[in-house]
């Protein structure tokens, strides 16, 4: 990851330090992992301590939780939601289904590894990870943001063709999300 070396400006250090304290996650219950989230949010584990709270629409969310297997139909909706999210966005893949197909490794309709289609920030192993694992991974994510390395969202713009090719192959044809990724890339001047 060659970004690690570039020097972050003072303002970026401060903004990373402050914005790491407030992460809003988009509650996208695709698979069986969603049931793990209520305990993490409520009294016993209380992830709100770290400033993480659930948000309903992609416009307001920073973290996209993919909790479990993704059939091709749901993957299309996930890509659309990912593109609707606002820029510094992080994808957290729950469980082994997002890593390498998990239990549905030989099914004809579920996608096997998530980062073919959208850039993933952190994976949480386990089928399904317990709240402790989720909070640990969130803390890793917070530390990563603090160090300024959580820039997976730039990959989407950088090698968009790779992702686009995979998506088109899996969906048998392009999907219309009304987002001009190339123009956005130019806006963020990512080459």
């Amino acid at each position, binding site marked *: 990851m060659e970004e690690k070396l570039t020097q972050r400006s003072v303002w970026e250090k401060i903004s990373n330090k402050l914005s790491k304290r407030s992460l809003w996650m988009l509650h996208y219950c695709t698979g069986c992992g969603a049931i793990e989230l209520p305990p993490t949010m409520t009294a016993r584990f209380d992830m709100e301590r770290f400033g993480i709270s659930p948000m309903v629409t992609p416009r307001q969310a920073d973290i996209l939780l993919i909790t479990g297997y993704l059939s091709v139909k749901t993957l299309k909706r996930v890509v659309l939601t990912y593109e609707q999210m606002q*820029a510094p966005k992080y994808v957290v893949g729950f469980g082994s289904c997002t890593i390498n197909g998990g239990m549905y490794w030989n099914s004809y309709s579920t996608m096997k590894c998530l980062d073919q289609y959208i850039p993933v920030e952190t994976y949480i192993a386990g089928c399904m990870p317990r709240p402790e694992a989720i909070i640990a991974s969130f803390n890793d994510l917070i530390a990563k943001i603090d160090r300024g390395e959580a820039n997976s969202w730039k990959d989407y713009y950088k090698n968009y063709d790779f992702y686009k090719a995979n998506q088109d192959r899996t969906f048998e044809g392009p999907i219309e999300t009304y987002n001009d990724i190339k123009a956005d890339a130019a806006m963020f001047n990512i080459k």
Partner: protein
Amino acid sequence: MNTVLWIIFLPIIIFIIGTFMLGYSRKFIARIERRYGPPIQQVFYDIFKLMNKKTNISHGWMHDIAILMLLGGTLLTLYFIPVPGFHFFAQYGDMLVIMYILLIPALGMALGVGETANPNGSIGISRALMMLAGYDIPFFLTFIGMAMLNQTTSMYELINIQQAGGFFGWGLITNPLLGVAALIALQGMLGEKPFEVMVAPHEIATGPMTEMGGKYLGIMMIQHAIAVVVELTIYINLFLGGALNWFEYIIKLFVLFTVLLSVNAVFGRFRTDDAVRFMWKIPLPMAVIGVLFIIF
């Protein structure tokens, strides 16, 4: 000279108080749910993160102007509210003006959300306006009662009259019916839980805020912080005898806010027509009887 200073620093002070109060509210609700709850300055972090977002989706020029109207309207209201130590503008506009200026942010948000062409937003706005019809009538009636009692519509004079009477001069004590009715209406005005149907997350994806992201949501949160303080100050000035020094003012703010929060924390959410029916069945008759007491 100090008025210029006041003009510059008043919004900042009120913004800070408001944000701390919102942080306090999230901590308070967490502690009721036996959770540890986020740090007090959590809302500052949220606002900072939102303002720092890279993409800010906007659906048209009206969407941007509406956000400006939203914050501008609330700042306008701020200057007309007599705050301890600064009531320079209070003489140029009285309570009627304040009640109407409160509607500008609502209209601004409504137009902006309408522009985002998202039915969730439109449903949220129509519910917010119906709630407005619900709580505004009793609140205005209580204000009319107080204004008729003291034969003045300017808020600054109302404070002086209440201050003269000491503790027993408070609006809440002199005519409790109006005070309680206004309290219930205030609950609706702030959008606290029993009357929170316009931002119901699960049904209509946080209603008006569906398409608001990045700095738009940031500005909305700043506005919400200021608006909370403004509305509470209106109630304090009308019924809790206003405040002469800042310490008493902040104490009253937090105490009143805790009362409202405790109601908010334990209540479910009314449906819109039930909420309006509730508002017209309980606080409105109370206010009418209160006014009748004043007349005869």
